[in-house]
Each structure stands twice: as C-alpha cells, then as structure tokens.
C-alpha cells in the first residue's frame, strides 16, 4: 500500500517536477511602465534577473550580460493572461462520457502549435489550456507559459500552477446527451449528473478514509476499495485541491452550480463565458465566484442571445473578479483590444480594463502571486507595446517570458514553425468559415464535426 501512496504522491507532484525552463536576464529601459497594481510609471526601467523581476525604477544600470531593450516611447505591461483558451492542445474534448474528470489536457500539450507564437505576438504569456465543454464534467486542464521554441511539453507547463478542471452547463452537454440518447438532456439533468458525481466521490472518499484507517490496525486483512482515477479526481475537487472552471451561459444554470458547490463545500469556482453573469452578479459576488467572459461574443446560439457587451463592466461594478478570455486562437492575439471594449461598454478605467487580462485572470488561475502585474519578485513576463495597449493602434513589439524574449516583431522571421511537415512544401491554406455559430469548446466532439462537415 505504501508503494501505492508513494505512487500517488509521485503523480501529484509530477506537475511540480522542474523541467528545463530557460530563465533570462533583461533590462527594459525608459518605458511607460503599466504595473496594473501599483500605478503607471513614466520613463521607468524594469530589470529582470534570472527570470524574475528584480527591480523597477529609474536609471537602472545594465549589469553585464543582460539583454537591453530600449522602450522609449513604448508601453511596458505585464504579460497578458488568457483564462480560457484551447491553443497548444492536440485534442480538447473527451466527450464520450458525461463525466471524465480523470482526463487532463496536460497530456495533450503541443509545444509546436504556431498559435502559441501568434498569442505571444499579441502580448500573451500565459494561457489556460482548457478541456472542452462537450460533457458536464470534463477534464482537468493545464496552465501553460508561452515558452515558444521549446520542444518539451513539460517546459510549457507553468510550474506550481494549481490544478484546474472544466465543467460545462447548458446547451453543449445537453445537446451531446440528446445526440447519444443519454443523460443529461436538460439543465435539470446537468444538475443531477454533477450532484451524483459529487455524491459518489464523497462516498468514495469516505470508503477510502475508512480503509486507510483500518489498515493501520495491526493484523488488518481486508480488501481495498476499488480504485478509480475518476472518483479520485472528483474527491480532489471536494477537498479543495482543484479550481473548478465552469462553462456556462445562462443565469439560472450559474445559480444552480453556485448552490451545488455551496452544498458540497467547493469554494474555488470560476465561471467561463458566463454571458448572463451580469444577471446574477450579486450572487456571484456574494459567493466569491469569479467570471471569465467574452468581450462581445453573442447570438451564435440561443443561450447567448440575451447577452450584452456590458457584461464585464456590470460584473466588475458588482465586485466580481472578472477577466476577458479568448476561447480562440484568433482572439488570443488581441486580448488587449478586447479589454479596451469595456471602456466603450461600461467606461472602465485603464487599470480596470487591463486588470481584466492580467491580474484578474491570474487570480482565477491561482497564480496571482507569480504573474499578472509588474512587481518585484514576480515572473519576468512582460509585453512591450508601441502605443498604449488599449489603443486600437497598439502594436505588440516584444514579448518576454521568464526574462527570455519569445517574440520580437522586428527581428523574428516570417516562418516561425519549429517542426515542419516533411510531406508537403506549400500548404493548402485554411480559410476559416465565418459562420459564427459556435464557441470553440466543442472542438473534437462528434456533434461539432458533424455540424461543420454537414454530416447531420
């Protein structure tokens, strides 16, 4: 048994195992430094030593061996964080069962995905590689750092980031239920599926606790309970070891999950998309639940028809920690622009608007002590812009992760692929369809494929 326990510990701590992460030394000179949490400082330098911000101030001399970047007339802000994306993944939906908490997108990481580079070219240094929303309880997800250029899946993982998991409510899981003739096919069914899973996990936990206790008695000779990675993971949610990120749109379903989580003692809860979050903003705030929203996506399906682009502003004004996410390899390239929309739709201040893509998503991922603002001791994840990042004319120029320049608009070649296809020279281009009838959370599920290819 001891062996097994060690095995579990090894698994849990595997995430923490230090991969060969590259840390850099860089000095950014004379920029307008938007710290997010501590105001905006003109003509200021930022020193990054061994991957961490070691000093913010004026006239810092460059130690030898440091990369020096002149940021005169430029804007320096913390690397942007996307709390909801599906880039850098080879698959996102294990949709075959209503409950699949045992799967983990960390197993599907793809450091070669060009989308990582494109995200860097939008100043994004951290993203949450989420499982899809085909099932009520989806898979565990991985918080990644955009260390593009590495070939190593492990280097992409953000070391020590808390575990997260994806849940999904509403049309996606119920449509999938209808297609396969199984539960859930309604929002009632979704609630039941989640309650049932939590209840079974509670039982599982109790059974194992009892067994482990009995086992300590000398001469105990009993059968261990059946092991289940699925229930084990659910139990970890109940124990508070995993942050729950839930795909949701409508106010009623958001309210439902708030109640279920309260009942089962699940405290760390972030709603994703949450288009009708504005309708239950007081309830969200009271529960300490957070919201990660689109800037303005709506009307692609019924449950987002009654949306408003003022969502982020209403949530913020009601005291809900809110972020703006991409859910898209396209949108992730200009989250700074998406954040700016809250200035039009609700009049958020510059710091409020930029918090939506920096410190707030960091809080939602449980990494706010590492990233999300420019402060001494935090990671050297920095985006440098020409023009203010909330201006439509803003252009990300340089993006730095752990003190290493990972994007440089002026120096990078056009072709930034790491591996190339040995079979073909000139790609057949991909021309995206512009039918806005989906979020990207269903990628890989049958109903999605069927729809896009007209098989249904």
């Amino acid at each position: 048994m001891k062996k097994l326990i060690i095995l579990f510990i090894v698994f849990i701590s595997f995430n923490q195992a230090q991969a060969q992460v590259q840390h850099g030394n860089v000095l950014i000179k004379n920029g307008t430094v938007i710290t997010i949490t501590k105001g905006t400082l003109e003509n200021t330098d930022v020193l990054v030593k061994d991957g961490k911000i070691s000093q913010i101030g004026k006239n810092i001399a460059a130690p030898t061996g440091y990369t020096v970047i002149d940021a005169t007339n430029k804007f320096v802000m913390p690397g942007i964080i996307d709390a909801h994306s599906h880039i850098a993944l080879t698959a996102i939906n294990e949709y075959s069962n209503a409950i699949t908490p045992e799967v983990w997108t960390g197993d599907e990481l793809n450091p070669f995905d060009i989308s990582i580079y494109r995200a860097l070219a939008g100043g994004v240094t951290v993203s949450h590689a989420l499982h899809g929303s085909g099932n009520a309880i989806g898979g565990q997800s991985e918080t990644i750092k955009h260390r593009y250029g590495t070939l190593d899946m492990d280097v992409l993982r953000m070391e020590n980031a808390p575990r997260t998991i994806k849940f999904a409510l509403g049309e996606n899981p119920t449509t999938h239920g209808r297609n396969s003739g199984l539960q859930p096919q309604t929002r009632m069914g979704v609630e039941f599926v989640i309650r049932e899973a939590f209840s079974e996990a509670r039982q599982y936990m109790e059974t194992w606790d009892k067994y482990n206790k009995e086992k300590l008695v000398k001469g105990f000779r009993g059968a261990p309970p059946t092991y289940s990675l699925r229930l084990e993971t659910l139990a970890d949610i109940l124990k508070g070891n995993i942050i729950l990120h839930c795909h949701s749109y409508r106010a009623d379903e958001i309210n439902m999950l708030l109640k279920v989580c309260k009942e089962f003692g699940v405290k760390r809860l972030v709603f994703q998309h949450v288009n009708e979050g504005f309708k239950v903003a007081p309830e969200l705030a009271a529960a300490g639940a957070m919201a990660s929203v689109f800037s303005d996506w709506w009307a692609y399906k019924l449950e987002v028809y009654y949306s408003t682009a003022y969502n982020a502003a209403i949530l913020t004004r009601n005291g809900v920690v809110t972020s703006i996410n991409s859910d898209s390899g396209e949108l992730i390239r200009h989250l700074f622009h998406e954040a700016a929309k809250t200035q039009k739709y609700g009049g958020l201040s510059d710091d409020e608007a930029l918090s939506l893509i920096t410190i707030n998503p960091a809080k939602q991922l449980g990494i706010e002590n590492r990233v999300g603002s420019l402060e001494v001791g935090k990671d050297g994840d920095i985006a440098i812009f020409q023009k203010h990042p909330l201006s439509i004319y803003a252009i990300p120029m340089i993006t730095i992760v752990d003190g290493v320049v990972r994007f440089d608009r002026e120096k990078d070649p056009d072709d930034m692929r790491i591996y190339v296809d040995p079979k073909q020279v000139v790609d057949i281009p991909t021309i995206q369809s512009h039918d806005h009838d989906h979020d990207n959370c269903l990628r890989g599920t049958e109903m999605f494929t069927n729809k896009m290819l007209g098989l249904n």
Partner: protein
Amino acid sequence: MKKFYSYPFNRWALLMLFCWPFSLLAQDDALAPVSRTYALTNATIIQAPGRKIEAATIVIKNGLIQSVGKGITTPPEAIIIRADSFFIYAGFIDGLSRIGVNKPKDDVSKERPKDPGNPTPERAGITPHNDVRTVLNPTEKSLEEMRGIGFTTAHVVPYGGMLPGNGSIILLGGTSADAMIVSHKNSFYSELTPAERAYPTTVMGVMAKYRDLYRQATLTKNYQSLYASNRAGIERPSSDRILESFYPVIDKRQTVFFKAEKVLELQRVLTLQKELGFTLTLIEVKEGWDMIPKVKASNAQIFLSLDLPEEKKDEKKTDEKKADSVKQAEKPKSAAELEKEVLEKRRTDFIAKYVGQASAYQKAGVKFGFSTLTAKSKDIPANLRRMIKAGLTEDAALASLTTTPAEIFGLSDRLGTVDNGKIANLVISDKPYFNEKAKVRYVFVDGVLYKQEVSEVKKADANAKVEIEGSWSVTTVTPQGTAQSTLTIKKEGTVYSGEIKITGSPLPLPEKLTSIALEGNVLKIAYSISIDGKSMDVKMDVIIDGITFKGNTTVASETFPVEGKKDPKF
C-alpha cells in the same frame, strides 16, 4: 491455318508445351530438402559488427550454426553452396511489427455503441490479455517480403487499440504458428491509440485509462498476494484478465513496448513511464532526434523506425526546369517561386533530421534497434542506405539489425551473430548488404534455406554489356501453372548458338534455337516446336540483368511472363 490456331488445339498445345510437368513441379516444391545440413563455402562472413572473416565456411546442421571459420571441413551429408564472393550476415531482427499476424477480418465495429462512455473492453481497445500466438499465420504474405530483404526474426504483436496484447519473438518461417515462436509473451504492447466513437476517444483519455488500470492492477495484485498468503476469513478476490495482464509489468518481469512515432507521442509515453515506473521499450520512433537526453534519462530501450519520409520525387523534373531556367535566366523569380524555394529548403533540411536520427543516436552513445511496424519492406534497404549516408556507420546499422535487438530481447545466446551454436538465421547477399547493388540471394531461417528470386526490373539498355553464355533455368508463368525449362547458349567467335529443353515435357525437345539476337542487354531468341507434325513458332524477348533475366515468351499469339536465372557453376 486458321483451323490450326483454333482454340482447342491452341490450348492443348500450350498445355503440352509448358504445363505438362506442372503437377510434378508443384509437388517438388513441397518436398523436404535432401539434407538439413548445408555448407556455405568460400564466403566473406560478417560474424558480428566489426568481426569479419574472408574465404570462410559455415556449416549448418539441425537448424543451428555448427561451425564457422576458415578451413572447416564440410561434412559429407552437407549440401554445398558455393558462396564465392558472397557476404554472409546474421539474419536481421525486426524490433516490432505485425508480419505474420492475421488482421482481424471484422475490425471491431466502428458504430457508436449505445453508451459510448462505457464500451466493452474490446470496443475500447483494451485487450492486454490477447496473445499474438493465437493469430500467427505462417503463410502470411509479409513474411516472405521481409525475409527477402534479410529479416529472419521479428517481434510481433496483435492488432488492436491502446492495449492490443502480448507480443512474441518469431522466426520468419516455419510450418506452424508454434514452430515460429522463439520466445513468447515478450512484451506488453501499448499504443496511445484512442477508440473510435467510444471512450477513450482522445490521447488524454487513453493516458487516463492507462493510469487508472495500472493503479487498479497494482491494488488488486497486492490483495491477491495477501489472499494467497492466507485465504481464511477474507473476501475472495475476483478474477480479472485485464488487470491480471498488468501483473508481470508491475513486477517488471515483462517490458512495456510502447509505440511512439512522433515527438509528442514519445514525450507522452515517457511521462507515463515516469509516473508509473514500468520498464519501457520505445518502438517505431521516427521523430526522436531532439529527445535523446530524455530517452537516456528514462533508461528506456529504443527501436527506431525503418520508415522515412520520401525524398523529393521529381528530381528529374527539376533538372528539366533547371535547363529551362537557364534558357530564361533573365526572367526574375516571382515572389511565389522564391517563397516556395525557401519552404522547400526548410522541408529538405527537416527530412534530413529523420534520416539522420539513427546517426544522432549513435553519436550520443545510445544503442538502438530498428522496427518496421509502419515501414514498407521494399523501402527498407534504401532507407538504411540513406541513414548510413547521413552518418550512421555500417557497423552500427548492422548492430541495430542484429546484436542490439538480440540483446534487448535477451536472446543473444541464440540470435544476432554468426557463431557456433546459434540458430541458423543467415542472410547472404551478392555484395556487401549496404551496397546499393547488393541483392539478397539466400536466406536461412532456423536452418531452412530460402532462395531469393532476384526480381528487379531492368530497363532495356543498348549500351549494356552482358554475358549470355551458359546454362539458364527458365520459368514461364501460364494461367495453368509454372513451367521450367533449361536454356543453353554457347558462343563461338562472335556467333551464338543454343538449345532449349523443357523439363519433363513429352515433346521432342531439345530444340535448337532458330535465332539469337543480343542488343545491349536485350536478348531475343526464337525456336519452333512441332506438334503432331505441325510446327509452331516460339519467341522469347528478355532483358538480361547480370545472372537473371525477365521478359515475355510468345507462342500462338499468346504471351506469358518469363524469368530466367543463370545456373551457378557447381
């Protein structure tokens, strides 16, 4: 005349001409050789990488290498094969493939199961209890193809999904499945292959299921041992053939062979190994050049794939284009052309990494074998040459085909080198094996001789110089069967003469050839035969390639393929 060529007579004549002896010949093939003792004499023998003896002899007896070396006396019962100027190697060992394995006829239904989240283990691809021995087929076609390029041993696994079953080491020859087995349950074969339309549908699903099963098995195994130690008073553990299949893996009595073609698969497999701690052999690795430190750190054994991406095909065309572009040298290249050039260069450079993978592993001091799961047998010799050209030493290539896999499989006492007492698995080529022009002439598997038909199609070449004098065994393939004949050609001064004799035919043969014309490597001969006092003309046009030829023979307006081989001078 018209009546003469009427169908019934025509058929009869053909039958008389070629097919009379057919039934006899067919039986002849199935006959056991007159002796199981062979002596290959006067050959260059590469006993192991870096261990070469020249003008040496091997004696094979009872399926084993009885003796090898210089000045060995050949036993009187030995069939002697003069292997002058031939090269003899230990038979090659394929690290993993499905040669000789029956593909399930009804591939598990891809229909969506009623509850896709809870499919049967078979539907999910979870059949680790399957044993490749139950699906071996000694007449399977790929056995012959692989033998033809020098492989005599293979580690084979069943078809399936994420956990297809146990693999065995087989000989690429034998009369029954059991006779082919060298050693069984050698491997616990695994892939990151999802099930279709049923759980697990993704790689992450497969990995989660793998962890789940492995840990379940660890628990049930412990409990079974507890139960076995004292059964009284505790619940009887239920039997579970899936979980039980993991037990030898957990005990490290069996190695997990994990397919890992792509760089990401490789990393994922190493992740699983790191977490679960099983003994690992990576197979069919194609994109592993950047992962050498990781592979080293994992202590995993590794088999590199013998499949390589194709080189640029249209080189001739580019030559023509070059000629064109010389003509139009003044026309500047369009942006699209320039872009394509740059991209083509990146691709070429990248293909070089696949080709150079083996060399990179050699330089890093990692021993590796080769596997052929996704390789086509016809490409393998050329792919080996490409790897050698990219820096892999010939010795290392040979080691990867022989000694290293023998070591990995723990079969060095039986396989991998040409040494006394080892299983008589040999490959004999007419030039050093890695030479482009080398052809495998004989293969011994378990002491059984397989002559190789040299069957490369040669093009007509007016400038080629060939020697046609001598005695040729000619095989004609007709719908009724295969006929054998002997063609003898002599040369006096500059004039050729010859005769042909059909083996076992009742017809009045040999017939003198009525014409012999040699132009370059194209030989045209004609003769006539007389049946019932009537004469029929026969023509044969063939292209000579060294000591073989291929072509057609035409008689009574019917054409049949024909092949010939010069009889060795013994």
